């Protein structure tokens, strides 16, 4: 993923057009309706998100369509889309694997997760597997430090990983199954790893 935001990173691979599906168009109108009259532009983030869910990424054509819908200059949409790292400005694989390497995850050995994912998928950060299934991305803190190390794959968090568990999650996805999201070491949410010691009721 390029960090140069001053221009589209893949000018040659931009689609010529974009249109919301009927369903997403209705959702877009619902998002716009949440804001007062004359404040349509406030719905720019929900609309970018809808476009990304529909296409997997946000193209310049999609941003232009959103600018038209919101009645703002196109540059105002480009500004927002380039500001947030969560908007993909170039195509990604079916599963976007975002590995957190910020300090708490790093201290819990996120480097091992990175190495495992790289060697398992055979790609580096910013790359997509040839079958178009996986894209690997290094990200800053995703706010799940108590369950470090963790990765985010599409909308789900997979936490309390080690190298083997991370590969296991990827293999499950590759088989077409959906691994159970959340901690992968058996604990529930962020309860103590060694089991509950307080608030245990009667015993």
């Amino acid at each position, binding site marked *: 993923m390029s*960090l*140069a*935001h*001053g*221009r*589209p990173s893949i*000018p040659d691979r931009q689609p010529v057009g974009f249109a919301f599906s009927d369903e997403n168009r209705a959702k877009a109108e619902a998002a716009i309706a949440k804001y007062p009259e004359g404040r349509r532009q406030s719905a720019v983030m929900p609309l970018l998100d809808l476009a990304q869910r529909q296409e997997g990424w946000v193209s*310049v054509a999609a941003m232009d369509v959103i600018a038209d819908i919101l009645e703002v*200059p*196109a*540059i*105002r949409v*480009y*500004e927002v889309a*380039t*500001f947030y790292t969560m908007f993909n400005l170039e195509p990604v694989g079916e599963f976007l694997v975002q590995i957190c390497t910020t300090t708490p995850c790093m201290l819990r050995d996120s480097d091992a997760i990175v190495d495992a994912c790289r060697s398992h998928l055979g790609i580096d950060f910013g790359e997509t597997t040839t079958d178009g299934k996986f894209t690997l991305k290094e990200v800053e803190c995703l706010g799940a430090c108590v369950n470090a190390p963790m990765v985010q794959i599409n909308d789900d968090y997979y936490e309390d990983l080690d190298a083997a568990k991370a590969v296991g999650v990827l293999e499950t996805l590759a088989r077409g199954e959906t691994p159970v999201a959340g901690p992968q070491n058996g604990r529930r949410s962020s309860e103590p790893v060694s089991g509950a010691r307080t608030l245990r009721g009667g015993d």
Partner: protein
Amino acid sequence: MGGTVKVSIDGVEIEVDKRLTLLQACELAGAEVPRFCFHDRLSIAGNCRMCLVEVERAPKPVASCAQPLMDGMVVRTRGPVAGKAQKGAMEFLLINHPLDCPICDQGGECDLQDQAMGYGKGVSRFEEQKRSVQEKDFGPLVKTFMTRCIHCTRCVRFMEEVAGVPVLGATGRGEDTEITTYIESGIASELSGNIVDLCPVGALTSKPYAFVARPWELSKTESIDVMDAVGSNIRVDARGREVLRVLPRLHEDVNEEWISDKTRFAIDGLTRRRLDRPYVRRDGRLREASWKGALDVVAGRLAGRDGARIAAIAGDQVDCETMYAMKTLLEALDSPNMDCRQDGMAVDPSARASYLFNSTIAGIEDADACLLIGCNPRREAALVNARLRKRWLRGGFKVAGIGPDPDPTLPVANLGAGPESLRRLAAGEGEFAPVLAAAERPLIVVGAGALARPDGAAVLGAARALAENCGAVAGGWNGFSILHTSASRVGGLDLGFAPRAGGRDTAGILDAAGTGDIDTVFLLAADEIDTGGMGGAFVVYIGHHGETGARGADAILPGAAYTEKDATYVNMEGRPQRAARAVFPPGEAREDWRILRALSDAVGATLPFDSLGALRDRMIADTPHLGAIDEIVPAEWAAFGVDGAMDDAPFVSPVPDFYRTCAISRASATMARCAEAFPTPPASGAGD
């Protein structure tokens, strides 16, 4: 709202308008506060942090540009707290700045350079890699060096707010922030050059002026622009015999502190296709001649000729002195045939209110509804358009247009293409009629597109009737305004450079030349008329560019362009302003009035002045308000126009191509590049 507050700034107690920001109050108190992002004509961003000052009882230094005033504020703009904060902000700004001043065009007139002298450390503590940013393509006028950018966003705000062409933005974030159009397109605005002035560093500089000169090498002359009829106040920077750049001068009532791109960048046309020596046609070919030889040929032609067979047409950039000298000479020759309206605009030379922008340009801000008839202000007078937009941004200002469907920078409701729509509006039909009727100060702007046509006088009459009926001329308000495109037009009409009793106008002169009724025609830099049908008439061209007018001439007397003479121009409001000579005319070219004076001598009808001062004294005696420099003498309302039948042909804007409207801009390579990069959309008349 109103009201004042008392604040203490660096120990100085002052009472100021409470709507000001703290930074403005500091300035009034005489304290200098450094700043980059703040600009008093743009919205407040508060992102450069350079203007931090210490406010008593505030927990930390505050950005004074974004700080409202409160009564009893005690402010220190210097001292340990503010000084340290300002020095810190400067150090951060310089961290990623390349410090390449020796190769930067902004060097010598750079806010960052100047303020680094006052607030910088002198040495850098930053040892890491500086960031670098790719250049952007902003078109043929604005050169970018984005690594120098400090992200003040003045350019972004200018394009959005003043120019109304919001194509610039800040993408990315943090270290990756860039000022860009994102999609790699030039900035298609008539005002884009102003972002070069606004940029406080060398990130945006002038492309045609790149690496040309340093500011201290230039002689600076305060003058007046003639590229349109706005009369923008400019500063002409020249070195030797060449004008190198044009910058705006502040005039609140005319151009504020902006100028159009044509004003700024057409100057390279001043050195191309110039007429630098006299020519006389012999054996069908134009041959070089001496001044004496050329003047003798023309004088020989005039001697003993019936005045009715002589005529003169003034071009769009001719100064008042030249027209006055020409008119005086024609009167001495007993000729009534003269006109300063190349396009045949049907205004009434005897009724000044019929050809002035009566509301004045600043007066646009007082209007509460606007009707544009046959004009596209964006192309015809970019700064009038900027003023309309400024008024519209304040709210409560509906604008409608009849005529060419413009590509406006403010919403304009199109009511139709031609006179039929005007008739319907006058009859009270449509949604805009009640708006106009309810407006207290309606503004009716009529352009050459509506008047420079065979039924122009009828359109003028209809527009006047509409203005009177909707209350556009009442109670000290005159909202009937003619939008001119020619810098010479109002001055010429004021001087009476129009058909005298029994005389012919431009179309009449051209016809009569074709039929042989007129056989000697003076063209004063008149290049926008079709000279093809002038038949065997003897044409004397007095002007500065070898163009359409000179091509068919029989004698060419090379004159001076607007940067080469001291001259009076009257803008569309009727405001006389004085341009000053920045450079000498090239070669043997002379100031136009001197040419006419010398010619009059050769003819034996010597003009009664032999200095510019004497000419001006006589001119002002004849037309007193031309002596009231920079003052507008309001025109008295009168009956003008005719009540006649109007053709149904749609109005067409007289400016098909913003970048090339006169001999200078047509000779300019920069303007040619602009016209190619930003083709004017075809001005289509919207269907009724």
